[in-house]
């Protein structure tokens, strides 16, 4: 064997024996992904009666993507993510109900900004601790916001909810119709854009550093990385995306229930992500589709005890698919990857 020569990292030009193709290829969309995004189009034609439900799925998927960024990628376990969903929902609601600004896209941007601000304010408290401390802080933030919304009755409508929200037509062209057609197309379009952004983020150097922080945060400073700065950025971005999801719910239902801030919503979205598979964007999407659909079907069959059944189904799925539903594809992917590098 020739001696090792690390000094040669100063030499220019590519390495001769390391195949860079697998990393380059990772960024490209795959055939299956195109197929996946035909689903919302197919659903439009197959379930025209269920557009409201399908809109719920899209909104939940955006919320799950947001959680995936901080939990699946950056490894921040949170049980208070509804805080940002709720802030976004109220921000969009008040913009219309209090200020009379009903443009949906403007509302989205506004909600994202307010939620991002909420993320910036909360991040020092959340990132300070680790493990269980962190989890407690996220729960605490969620509870405080819920109570604040409850107390600020005059402003938020308290437990009665926020009313008087009216949306102007989307882009000035499409008004929100009774059948939910505009709402569905709008929600799916926003989901698609959020997904594209998230896909870029997780595949970027920044996204790689988030995954690395998740695996071994203590090593990162020795690589020159300020872990807190990275996690703060991820936290704020996720807050903004959760806010967008909340705003969509407000805009498509023209109502804000105080439940948007509820602990149940935080727990549910965590469940959805784990169910689909954390740390992979399609896990968030599949989790949302399966959970909301199951919820709908089981509530139909057994309106009283649907939670019991959904609990059973979830336990079953998670026991058999340890890494979530999308985790099932792991062994195949690895096999494929090995074949491709061997070529």
């Amino acid at each position, binding site marked *: 064997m020739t001696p090792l020569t690390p000094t040669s990292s100063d030499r220019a030009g590519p390495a001769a024996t390391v195949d860079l193709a697998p*990393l380059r290829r990772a960024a490209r969309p795959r055939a299956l992904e195109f197929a996946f995004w035909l689903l919302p189009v197919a659903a439009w034609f197959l379930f025209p009666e269920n557009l409201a439900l399908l809109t719920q799925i899209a909104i939940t998927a955006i919320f799950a993507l947001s959680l995936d960024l901080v939990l699946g990628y950056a490894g921040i376990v949170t049980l208070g993510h509804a805080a940002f969903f709720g802030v976004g929902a109220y921000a969009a609601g008040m913009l219309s109900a209090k200020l009379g600004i009903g443009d949906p896209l403007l509302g989205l941007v506004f909600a994202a900004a307010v939620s991002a601000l909420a993320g910036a304010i909360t991040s020092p408290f959340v990132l300070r601790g680790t493990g269980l401390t962190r989890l407690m802080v996220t729960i605490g933030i969620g509870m405080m916001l819920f109570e604040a919304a409850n107390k600020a009755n005059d402003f938020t409508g308290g437990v009665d909810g926020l009313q008087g929200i009216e949306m102007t037509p989307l882009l000035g062209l499409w008004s929100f119709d009774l059948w939910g057609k505009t709402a569905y197309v709008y929600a799916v379009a926003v989901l698609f854009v959020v997904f594209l952004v998230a896909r870029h*983020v997780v595949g970027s150097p920044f996204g*790689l550093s988030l995954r690395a922080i998740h695996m071994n945060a203590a090593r990162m400073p020795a690589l020159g990385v300020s872990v807190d700065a990275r996690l703060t950025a991820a936290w704020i971005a996720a807050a903004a995306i959760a806010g967008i999801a909340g705003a969509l719910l407000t805009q498509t239902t023209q109502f804000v229930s105080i439940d948007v801030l509820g602990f149940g919503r935080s727990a549910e979205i965590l469940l959805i992500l784990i169910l689909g598979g954390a740390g992979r964007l399609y896990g968030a999407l599949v989790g949302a589709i399966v959970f909301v659909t199951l919820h709908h079907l089981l509530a139909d069959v057994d309106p009283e005890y649907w939670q019991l059944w959904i609990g059973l189904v979830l336990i079953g799925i998670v026991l058999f698919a340890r890494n979530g539903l999308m985790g099932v594809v792991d062994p195949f992917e690895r096999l494929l990857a090995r074949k491709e590098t061997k070529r």
Partner: protein
Amino acid sequence: MTPPVLETRDLVKTFGGFTATDGVSLSIAKGARHALIGPNGAGKTTLVNLLTGFLTPTSGSVLLDGADVTGLAQHKRVARGLARTFQINRLFADLTVLESVALAVAEQMGVGRRFWRPIGRHGEVLDAAARLVEDLHLADVAHRRTRDLAYGKQRLIEIALALAARPRVLLLDEPAAGVPTSESRELFAALAALPADMTILLIEHDMDLVFRFADRISVLVSGAVLLEDTPEVVAGHPLVREVYLGEAHHV
């Protein structure tokens, strides 16, 4: 006169009532090959942790290029050219070798915060990472996950991560620990080939390797510097034979 690249003044670190670093004053010149030896528990790793900011000293100061960096965060010291390896691997289990090194290279190049362009399209990062992977004889396992590799191979990733930072000062905490003897010779040949103006502080138990590599040696015992001199003087020093070499030969 240019200040020493790395310097400590009366550095003290206590854990509860236990003094792990006891008034250490070191001065390391640019381009030095400085070895730090001493029995297990002498405080060698603790000293490296203090130098890099992994630990905060109880008292005393650390200077890098003559500037006080005692309170400076770890990652900022890395930005000033101070890199290290860990005695026990600290790696990224689910990243491939190439991803791990690309991560470190991206940070060195200052593109680690970029959140849009895929890592796979950062050609300059990939090229530099691939060269490092190749230089450390990891090319055949470049696309394998860290967790699937033998400890000796993982050790090379640990070193690659430190080199990716393009350090001016490199602190190596027992780099060959856990590496089979045949490969450790190769590893040291590599370390010997590092640029002459890179300042290196090496912790190592194999005295043959130390005496071949170092031009200065500090002997640390119970947290304090017992002696600092050239390899010849250190090797002949009766106290060293008694305190350290006698014990080290069984390693």
